[in-house]
């Protein structure tokens, strides 16, 4: 695994000792083998479930970049999932089916929205920041409800997946799955690079001690804003994937509880750790799936489980494997 990550160009800090590296390696290896399992058992559902896990992992990774590393607790991150999805859906409806147009558009519109939201929200702090990001997400939610041509409140089925001129065929479930897998790996590499760069240290410094940051001569606003935009763009990509995965978009993608889900995944996995969001997403979605198979009322167990994690597991699942704890 270490070797694999080295090949991918992931810098390995000295603290990446055995137990911490083993778990991400195992999880990624298993995710990579899901199509083999699906083919062997003829169970296509595994591809659907784990494809969704990978896509939402990318969204959680992007949220962790701002929330875990940057201390910017966005309660409106599902908006970018929705914007990415609607970019794909709207372009399809207007007859543009090429992924080479749809996906860059999804990323660009999400980035632009993040730029506007960030520029206005980063003036506030703490709970006010949490709430103003929520407010912007709710606005997008209601805008899409009003988009009659694109399904309004009910949402819209997307007739065909993004086309990539024969490079990849997203109608092939295995190819779609591996594309998601590759983008998940790429997101991990990207974020690990960014957080260890000069830019990333400024972001983490701003979370750790804003006043000291200013005293050494850095005005943090621009850096935080750029970080917010990067996260929005990455989540927009995740939204484009999600729209292709489900062939469906609706305002419900952005309802505030979806943003809550994303926050839960990140906090559950471990704030500010590279692999935490993936662990959190895998755990949350698998638990939800497993519980709904054994009981009619999964929330009765999932809910108190989250509460127990909040009370007892300071630092999320990652902290069980020797990661540093939050202060």
């Amino acid at each position, binding site marked *: 695994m270490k070797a694999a990550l080295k090949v991918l160009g992931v810098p390995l800090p000295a603290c990446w000792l055995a137990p911490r590296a083993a778990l991400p390696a195992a999880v990624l290896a298993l995710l990579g083998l899901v199509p083999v399992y699906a083919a062997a058992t003829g169970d296509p559902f595994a591809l659907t479930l784990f494809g969704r896990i990978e896509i939402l992992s990318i969204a959680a990774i992007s949220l962790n970049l701002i929330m875990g590393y940057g201390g910017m607790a966005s309660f409106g991150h599902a908006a970018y999932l929705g914007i990415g999805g609607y970019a794909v859906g709207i372009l399809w409806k207007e007859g543009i089916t090429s992924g080479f147009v749809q996906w860059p558009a999804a990323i660009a519109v999400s980035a632009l929205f993040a730029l506007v939201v960030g520029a206005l929200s980063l003036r506030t702090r703490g709970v006010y920041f949490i709430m103003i990001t929520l407010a912007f997400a709710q606005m997008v939610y209601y805008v899409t409800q009003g988009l009659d041509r694109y399904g309004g409140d009910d949402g819209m089925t997307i007739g065909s997946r993004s086309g990539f001129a024969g490079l990849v065929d997203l109608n092939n479930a295995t190819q779609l799955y591996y594309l998601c897998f590759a983008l998940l790996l790429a997101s991990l590499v990207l974020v690990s690079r*960014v957080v260890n760069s000069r830019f990333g240290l400024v972001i983490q410094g701003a979370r750790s001690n804003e006043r000291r940051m200013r005293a050494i001569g850095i005005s943090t606003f621009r850096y935080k804003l750029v970080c917010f935009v990067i996260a929005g763009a990455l989540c927009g990509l995740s939204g484009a994937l999600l729209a292709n995965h489900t062939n469906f978009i609706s305002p419900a993608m952005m309802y505030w509880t979806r943003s809550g889900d994303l926050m839960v995944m990140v906090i559950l996995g471990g704030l500010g750790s590279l692999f935490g969001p993936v662990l959190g997403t895998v755990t949350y979605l698998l638990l939800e799936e497993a519980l709904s198979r054994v009981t009619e009322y999964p929330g009765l167990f999932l809910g108190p489980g989250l509460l127990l994690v909040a009370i007892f597991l300071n630092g999320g699942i990652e902290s069980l494997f020797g990661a540093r704890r939050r202060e």
Partner: protein
Amino acid sequence: MSEPLLQVAGLTKRFGGVIAAEAIALAIPAGECHAVIGPNGAGKTTLVGLLAGEIAPERGSIRFDGRDITALAVPGRSQLGLARSFQITSLFADFTALDNVALAVQAHDGHSFRFLTDARRDAALREPARAALEAIGLGSRADARVDKLSHGEQRQLEIAVALATKPRLLLLDEPMAGLGSDESARMVAMLRRLKGSLTMVLIEHDMATVFALADRITVLVYGRVIASGDPAAVRADAAVREAYLGEQDARHG
């Protein structure tokens, strides 16, 4: 005679009805170690805030290196070479000592929009940072997280971070706060080494430190400058004895 490095004129600030600074004037030439003393509530903390740029004055001006910086925000002043240490240790607690200093080096290197290369392997940041830690006597603790350092070590690191921004003027806000006598002696020795190469404004409670280090002393009482001059003159000043030193002398018998 050339203009002083730091020149403050008519600096005034009130909080509600309370005068925290009233027409303060200071002229600190390059290379001087200038102490500001005063009893509790004299407005020392306000003065630090005004000089660092965290508090905006109602009236008056601050000139630094021939430039009016009255309206300049904290980061801008730092970029011009006005560094500060904090009275209550203010570091990046979850970073290592070396990361703390390296970030300060980076802040003045001017290139923070670099996204993909590993800043912890950037010799242009790490080597000056390591050198600054060595110089201050923290070389062996470079890779320790700040919250694992002792209070004395954190106070030293405070200074190292400020120095790493290559300042022309160092604003020291009670550097001895909370230090034991050994640690204090080490801090005084370190500041003495810096004297001459660096202009310093030293806000301090501890009289021994002040008289050991300062070239000139300004005394604040209720936000006003009541005396300013070399240590001997200040020591002899009747108003100062009355307002401040007298009190201390009486206490020390």
